[in-house]
C-alpha cells in the first residue's frame, strides 16, 4: 500500500525521488480510496515553480473535490497527459500509471516529508 522508496505528506501526496534531481508526485492509496472514483485531475502548466505546501492542482471525484499540494519545492517539468483520458489510473495504480506531475527538485527536500512508518501512523490516527 505504501512503498518504502516514497516520501509522504500530511495531505496524502507522495514524492518519488528519481535519483537525478527530479521526482514524480501523485496521491497515496489512502487518498484515492477516500476520494472514490476520480473523474478529473487539474494540473499546472510545465514551467510552474512552487514552494512546498503551495497548491499544485485539484482532483475531482464523482463525490467530491480535493486540492493537492507540492510535497517539496520545485519546478513542474511534465504533467501526466494520460490522466486526461484515464483519470481512473489514479484509483487503479496511484504509484504507477496514476502519477500526476514530474518535478525538478529545488533545494533540500521538505523537512515535513514522512517516511512509511510516519505516514502509516498518520493515517491510523485519521482513521479512528
Amino acid at each position, binding site marked *: 500500500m505504501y512503498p518504502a522508496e516514497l516520501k509522504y505528506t500530511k495531505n496524502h501526496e507522495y514524492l518519488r525521488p528519481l535519483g537525478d534531481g527530479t521526482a514524480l508526485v501523485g496521491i497515496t492509496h489512502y487518498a484515492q480510496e477516500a476520494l*472514490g*472514483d476520480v*473523474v*478529473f485531475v*487539474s494540473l499546472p502548466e510545465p514551467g510552474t515553480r512552487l514552494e512546498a505546501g503551495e497548491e499544485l492542482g*485539484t482532483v*475531482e*471525484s*464523482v*463525490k*467530491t*473535490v480535493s486540492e493537492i499540494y507540492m510535497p517539496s519545492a520545485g519546478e513542474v517539468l511534465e504533467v501526466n497527459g494520460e490522466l486526461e483520458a484515464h483519470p481512473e489510473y489514479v*484509483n487503479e495504480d496511484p504509484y504507477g500509471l496514476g502519477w500526476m506531475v514530474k518535478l525538478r527538485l529545488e533545494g533540500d527536500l521538505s523537512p515535513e516529508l514522512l517516511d512509511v512508518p510516519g505516514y502509516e501512523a498518520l493515517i491510523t490516527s485519521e482513521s479512528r
Partner: protein
Amino acid sequence: MSDLKRTPLFDAHVALGARMVDFGGWEMPLQYPTGILAEHHAVRKAVGLFDVSHMGEIRVRGPQALPFLDWLTPNGVAALRPGRIHLTGLLTEQGTFVDDLLLHKLSDQEFLLVVNASNAAKDLVWVRERAAKWEVEILDESVATGQVALQGPLSLDVLQPLVDIDLAGIPYYGFASGGFRGVPVLIARTGYTGEDGFEVYCPAGRTPWVWETLLEAGRPQGLLPTGLGCRNTLRLEAKMALYGHEIDDGITALEADLSRILRFGKGDFLGREALAAQREHGPDRVLVGFRMLAKGDIARDHMPVLEGGHVTSGAPSPTLGCNIGLALVPVAHAGLGSRIQVEIRGRACPAEVIPTPFYARSR
C-alpha cells in the same frame, strides 16, 4: 459515529466492506468497494440493491383519512385509485416544503406515507398536530419497517421468482401486498434512480434475510449492492428532488418546478393560497438543469450562480459523460439555451441551461 442511527442492515454493509457515512443522522453506506461509477452503471444497465430502511413510514387511517390528506397535501388524493402511489409533499402555508413524500393509497380509509429519514421525526409531529380535529389515527411505523430498493432494468427478473405477486401486473407508481418467500411484504414499483424497479417493505427483523436473498438471487444478473453515492448521481440524472437541495422550507413547489404535484382545482389544501398567488404573477426564480461547457468544470452543491441563485446539486453524470447540475436561478436566465456562470473556486465557469430530466429510460 456512535450517536448515529443504524438500519437493520448495518452489519451487512460492514461485512461487504462499505464506506459508511453520516446521512441525515443515519450511518449509511456511501459506496461498496466496487465504487460509485460501477454501482451507477449497474443500476442503469442491470440491477442494484439499496438499503433504504432509514426512510420513515407513517400510516394514516380512519374515516376521515382521505379528506384529511387531501387538505394536508397538494396532490389529488381523492382522484388516486387504491393500489396507486403519487409524489406529493407536506407544505407550509407559504407553499414551501416541510418534506416531500410518496403517498400510497390502500383504501379511502388507509394510506401509507413514506418520508425522508432526516425529516421523519419532524414530519410525524407536523402530521399529528394537524390531525387533531380529524377522525384519523397516525401510526409511526418507521422502526418496525425495513425497506430495500431493487433498481434497474433487470429488477423484475431478479424479484419475480421470489414473490407470490405478479410483478408485471404492478404499474409504475403502483403497489401490491404479498409474500417474499413467505415473508409478508409490500412491493411498490417506485424508486429514486430513474430506472424501473421495486421498493420492498418488510418487517424490520426480516430485512437482513430479504437483503441476503436478493443479493444471492441477483448474482447471475450482475446485481451489485449500491450505496448513497450512486443514488445521488442516479436521482440527479433523473431530476428527482433531494430535500435540503432542490426543496426545503424556503423553496416553494412552483420554484422547485414541481407544479405536477399541485392540484389547484381540488379545493383547499395547505399552502394553496400562497402558491395560487405565486402562480398568478409567476415565481421570481425557478429550478433549471444545466451542463458545464468545459470538461474539467464540475459544479457542486451550494456553489453560487453569477446571474443570481445557486447550484442545488451538481456532479459528473456517469451516464451522459458530462458535468451536470440543478440550480435555482432568476427566471430571466431560466430559458433553455441560456448561458449561466457557476463560480467554482473563484472562477466563473460557463454552463448552458438544458432540458430535463437529463436522463429518461426508454419504456
